């Protein structure tokens, strides 16, 4: 790993961000709008005066934490896509830059972008709906680490697919992670899922984190079981995605796909 080259990729992404309105919209606008809309919906639920105790915290907490997964995954996959769209991929990988230096740079930049995004949406949720994300206390830290680890694993996996199969599967960069949304129990407990989906859900670190989040918001404590499961699963997914990406990159080199990744 060469730090200067990692800095080069980060610099390229920052330059891109400076000239790209859609990047700024993706980073700040959509998450803010999400929080505002869901905030109004929960306010409406409260006005119905039903058994909706704690619904603001559950929904907004879930929404803000899901944004970590969604944005962090997209940051990794989109960094590659932007270079493919710019016909820059051959130039990029014909330098001494290695694929893992590229991925590492996108992870570092993504981390800081997520901090900014989450800070913004947390501030909006606090000002408009009096929801304090930091009411999760110190648990917020392992939740954040765990969610970002899963997002990176997914992002690395999807990037491997794109480098191997090219632009025809580019939509995976912004859609594949959504497949995990319904079974991650973001807005509802795992118990509401059909039994077979519950088993699948518990194989995802996200489901454990969101179950944990509801436990903390509801009771103020957290059984360590969810955190242990989430971390253990993340280790497995990260190792698998790292192997998968390396395997796919080598396959793409064998098949000459990097030179034709725009197709």
């Amino acid at each position, binding site marked *: 790993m060469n730090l200067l080259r990692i800095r080069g990729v980060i610099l390229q992404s920052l*330059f891109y961000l400076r*000239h790209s309105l859609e990047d700024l919209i993706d980073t700040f606008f959509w998450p803010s709008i999400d929080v505002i809309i869901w905030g109004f919906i929960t306010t409406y639920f409260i006005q119905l005066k039903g058994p909706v105790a704690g619904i603001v915290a559950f929904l907004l907490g879930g929404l803000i934490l899901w944004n970590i997964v969604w944005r962090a995954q997209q940051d990794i996959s989109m960094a590659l896509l*932007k270079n493919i769209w*710019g016909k*820059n991929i051959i130039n990029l*990988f014909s*330098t001494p830059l290695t694929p893992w230096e590229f991925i590492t740079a996108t992870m570092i930049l993504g981390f800081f972008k997520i901090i900014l995004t989450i800070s913004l949406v947390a501030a909006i949720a606090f000002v408009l709906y009096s929801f304090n994300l930091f009411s999760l206390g110190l648990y917020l830290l392992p939740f954040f680490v765990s969610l970002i680890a899963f997002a990176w694993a997914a992002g690395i996996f999807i990037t491997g697919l794109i480098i191997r199969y090219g632009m025809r599967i580019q939509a995976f960069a912004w859609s594949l992670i959504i497949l995990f949304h319904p079974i991650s129990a973001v807005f509802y407990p795992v118990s509401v899922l059909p039994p077979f989906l519950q088993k699948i859900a518990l194989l995802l670190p996200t489901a454990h984190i969101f179950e944990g989040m509801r436990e903390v918001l509801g009771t103020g404590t957290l059984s360590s079981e969810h955190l242990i499961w989430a971390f253990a699963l993340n280790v497995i997914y990260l190792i698998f995605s790292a192997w998968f990406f390396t395997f796919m990159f*080598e396959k793409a080199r064998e098949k000459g796909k990097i030179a034709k990744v725009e197709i």
Partner: protein
Amino acid sequence: MDNISFEIEKGEILGLLGPNGAGKTTTIMMLLGLIKPTRGTVKVFGLDFCSNREKILNKINFSSAYTSLQGRLTVSENLYTFSYFYGISHPAQKIKTLLEDFELVDLKNQITGNLSSGELTRLNLCKALINDPQLLFLDEPTSSLDPDIAQKVRELLFKIRQERNISILYTSHNMEEVTQMCDKVIFLDNGKIVASDTPLNLTKMIRDCLLTLTFDTPLKKVKELCLSKNLNFQIPQPNVLEITTQEKEIGQLLTQLAQEGVNIADIIIKKPDLEDVFLKITRQKYESIKN
């Protein structure tokens, strides 16, 4: 690619020619490590590519008409990015010099996506020289340019070669350009080297010249004369005769025609060029497929 090996001397421009699909771009991509050979090894500077990737890529660079730099970034932002990839110690000074050399100073804050083809080619060349490479791969660098800009780029490349003594591997479909630019040429076909020599020696593979004569003698007489002398000829227009013959026989042939009363008004001799060599090679391939 099938077991190819070639050498480029320091400061030499080596042309890589061949029909579409011959393996020109694949060769360059393999030398850049972007395509992995199914068998065998790739060696550059005598070093195995797999175990010396970083060392090799630090000493080479690449420019192609078919790739671009990040269109959203400005000219200097793109160059800054690449200076980090190559670990350039004083990027600002290096970029300033390159922009001056390639007359891009006024465009340094221009968005790359807004550049014209000629400007983009010059920017690609700036990128290709940012690490002072010892070996430069140029994949059809002038293919999307108008003749005037293409000529300017060729002059620029000559200047670069002279000033920096860089070895260049050059692919192009423009045979005239290759003849003008390259010290040596390799013809590739089906992944194999089928010919390798200087452009002059390669054209000597084809002995026949095309002799075009404009005459004001009755057509019938000229035709009978050509048949009687068993010439390989065509009459594309009523007063134009095209004869395919060896260069050394042209003088004698013209004398004979004059002695037989053919009144020759104009003579054009087209010696074989690389395009003829190219056509010969591709036709041989076509014939072999047909048979």
